C-alpha cells in the first residue's frame, strides 16, 4: 500500500473549462479519503487524474513517492471501480476478474487462486461462470470490486460506485466497503456526491466545489467546524439554516444578531471574534438540531427564544422535521417524535446559540 500526494494539480479542458484548480492534498498510507461535492465540482476529474485517465494540465501527482505524471494508468499500480461498474459484457465474471492478471502474464494457477480468494471475500463464488448481464446491480458491483482487489494494487480508486444501487443495498455495500478497507488495509480514494456516504465512510473528507478544495478534515470536524458557508450547507441533512442579518451591540456590551424580525443574543465568548462585524451584515448558520422544542429543554444562558409558525411536518419515524417560518425567514428543525405541534400552529422555539456559526456575507468564510 502507498500514499498519494497531489501538488498544485490543475486540469483545464477544451474551451477553458477548469475542472480542477490548484488541488493539493495528501492521502496517507492505508487511509480512506472521500472526495465529495455537488456534480461538476471536479471530484471525478481529480480521481481520473490520479488514475492517469486524464492528462494533467499542471501540477504533480505522486503515488508511493514516485512521480506518476507521465506514467500510463496500467503502470501506476492502481485499481478503479466505476460508477456503472464497466464490466466487460462479453466475459464471464471469472474472466472479468482475471483479465488484468492475464494481461500482466501471471501464471494460470496464481490467477485462479487470486480470483477465487477475492470471490470468497465478496461472496460471489457462485457467480463466477455468469456473464454480467445475468447479475443484479449489487452483484455487478461486487464483481467490479473483485476485479479491483485481485490485482492487489497500491491504491484503490472508487468513482461513485454506489450511486446506481437502490437505497437499501447502498447502505449494505457502504458497510462492506468499509469492512474491505480494514481487511485489505488499503489506501482508498473514494468519490461521491452523497454527503452521508462521505461522512460514514471517510476517515478524512475533501470537500470540493467548482474545481476548488473547500476544506479537508475529519467528518466530525467538517460538521462542527465548517470552513465556509458552502461546506456548512453541504454537510448535514437537513441542511443548515442560514439567516442573513446584522450584528449590533446592546447597552450592556453584549452582541445580538437580527434579521429585522427575530433578534438573537450571542454568548459573550463570541464578542472578541465578532467585534469588528458590529453594524455589518453577516450570515448566521444554525443546524436543525440546535433549534429545540421548549416542551423538552430548559432554557440556558446560551439559548434564545423565538416564535415561528409550523408550515410542514415530515415524520421520519425516529425523528420529525419541522419546516417553520419566523415571518422573515424559513427554518428547518429536527425534533423528537413526541409533543409535536400541529401544522399552522404558532410555536415558541429555543435556539442554542452556543452551537451557532457565522459567515462573512461576501467571502462566506466562517468567522467562528
Amino acid at each position, binding site marked *: 500500500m502507498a500514499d498519494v500526494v497531489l501538488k498544485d494539480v490543475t486540469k483545464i479542458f477544451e474551451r477553458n473549462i477548469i475542472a480542477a484548480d490548484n488541488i493539493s492534498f495528501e492521502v496517507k498510507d492505508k487511509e480512506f479519503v472521500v472526495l465529495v461535492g455537488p456534480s461538476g465540482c471536479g471530484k471525478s476529474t481529480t480521481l481520473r487524474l490520479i488514475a492517469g485517465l486524464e492528462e494533467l494540465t499542471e501540477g504533480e501527482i505522486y503515488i508511493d513517492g514516485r512521480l506518476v505524471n507521465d506514467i500510463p494508468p*496500467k503502470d501506476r499500480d492502481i485499481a478503479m471501480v466505476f460508477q456503472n461498474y*464497466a464490466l466487460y459484457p462479453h466475459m464471464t465474471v471469472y474472466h472479468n476478474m482475471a483479465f488484468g492478471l492475464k494481461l500482466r502474464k501471471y501464471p494460470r494457477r496464481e490467477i485462479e487462486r487470486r480470483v477465487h480468494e477475492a470471490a470468497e471475500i465478496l461472496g460471489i463464488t457462485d457467480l463466477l461462470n455468469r456473464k454480467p448481464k445475468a447479475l443484479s446491480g449489487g452483484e455487478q458491483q461486487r464483481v467490479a470490486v473483485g476485479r479491483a482487489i485481485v490485482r492487489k494494487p497500491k491504491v484503490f480508486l472508487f468513482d461513485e460506485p454506489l450511486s446506481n444501487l437502490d437505497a437499501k443495498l447502498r447502505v449494505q455495500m457502504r458497510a462492506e466497503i468499509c469492512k474491505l478497507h480494514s481487511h485489505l488495509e488499503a489506501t482508498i480514494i473514494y468519490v461521491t456526491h452523497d454527503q452521508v456516504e462521505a461522512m460514514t465512510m471517510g476517515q478524512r473528507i475533501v470537500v470540493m466545489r467548482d474545481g476548488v478544495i473547500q476544506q479537508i478534515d475529519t467528518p466530525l470536524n467538517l460538521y462542527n467546524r465548517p470552513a465556509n458557508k458552502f461546506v456548512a450547507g453541504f454537510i448535514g441533512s437537513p441542511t443548515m439554516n442560514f439567516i442573513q442579518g446584522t450584528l449590533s451591540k446592546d447597552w450592556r456590551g453584549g452582541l445580538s444578531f437580527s434579521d429585522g424580525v427575530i433578534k438573537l443574543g450571542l454568548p459573550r465568548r463570541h464578542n472578541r471574534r465578532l467585534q469588528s462585524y458590529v453594524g455589518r451584515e453577516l450570515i448566521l448558520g444554525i443546524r436543525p438540531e440546535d433549534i429545540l422544542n421548549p416542551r423538552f429543554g430548559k432554557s440556558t444562558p446560551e439559548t434564545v427564544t423565538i416564535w415561528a409558525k409550523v408550515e410542514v411536518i415530515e415524520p421520519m419515524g425516529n425523528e420529525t422535521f419541522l419546516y417553520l417560518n419566523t415571518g422573515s425567514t424559513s427554518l428547518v428543525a429536527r425534533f423528537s417524535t413526541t409533543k409535536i405541534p400541529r401544522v399552522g400552529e404558532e410555536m415558541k422555539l429555543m435556539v442554542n446559540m452556543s452551537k451557532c456559526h457565522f459567515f462573512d456575507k461576501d467571502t462566506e468564510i466562517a468567522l467562528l
Partner: protein
Amino acid sequence: MGRFTRLPLYIVLVLWSLICLYPLVWMVSTSLKTMPEVTEDPMALIPKIFHWGNYLEAWTKGNFGTYFKNSLIITVAALFLVLWTTSMTAFAVARTDFPGRRSILYALVITLFIPAEATLVPVFHIAKGLHLLNSLAGIIVVSVAGSQVVSIYLIQAYLRTIPRDLDDAAKIDGCNLFQRYWYVILPLAKPVLATVAILTFMGTWNAYMLPLAFTMARPELRTLPVGLVAFQSGFAFSVNWPLLCAGAAISIVPVIALYVFLQRYFVSGIAAAGLKG
C-alpha cells in the same frame, strides 16, 4: 391491432412475398427442366422429371465450378480484409483521441456521394499502372478499397454506443491500444461486424462491373455474375435456360445461407447505425 384489422395487412404481405419468391421458384424449377420442356411451357412451375444432372453440367461444362471458385476466393479474401482494416479505422476514429479524427471521418463520408461507376475508369487505369488487371488480387484490392467508407461509417457509429468506461477499465487493467481493440471493443462489435460482413459479402459476390472490367483478357478468372452473363450472351439465339438457371441457383446459395445464418445481426447492426433498414 385486432385480428381483423390485421387481416388485410397479412394478405398484402403474403401477396408481396409471392411476387418476390416467384422468380426464384421459377429459376429453380427451370434449372431442373430439359431444354425442350422449357420451350414447350416456360411458365410451368413443376418439372415433369427433375434433371439434377443440369447442375453437374453447369458446374463442369458451363465452367460455373471455376467461376464459383473465383467468386469464393475474391469474396472470402475481401471479407477478411474489409473486416480487419475497417474495424481498426473505425476504432481509431470512434474510440481514440487524436486531432483531426472528425475531419478524417467527414472526408471519408463525403466520398459516399460519388457513385462507383464514376470512378471505374480511373480505377481501371490506376490498376493497370499497378499491374493489377487480369488478376484476382486486383479485384480483391479494389473491392476492399470500395467497401471501406460504408463499413467504417457503420462500425464507428456502433462503437460510439459502447460505454467509454470500458476503455478506461481496460486501460487500468493493463491493455495497450491494440489489446483494447482486440480484447474489449472488437468482441462487443460483433453485431455490426456481422452487418458489414453481410454487406461486403453481398457486394463482392454479386459485383459485375468490376470483375468484368478486370477479367476481359482472362475468361478463366471470371466470377459467377460475369460468367452467367457471358454464358447467356454466348448463345445469343438459343440460350440454354436450364443450365443458366442452374448456374444462377448455384450463385445464390451462399448468399441465402449467409443471410439466414446472420439475419439477427443484420437487423440489429443496421438499426444501431441509425439507418432504419
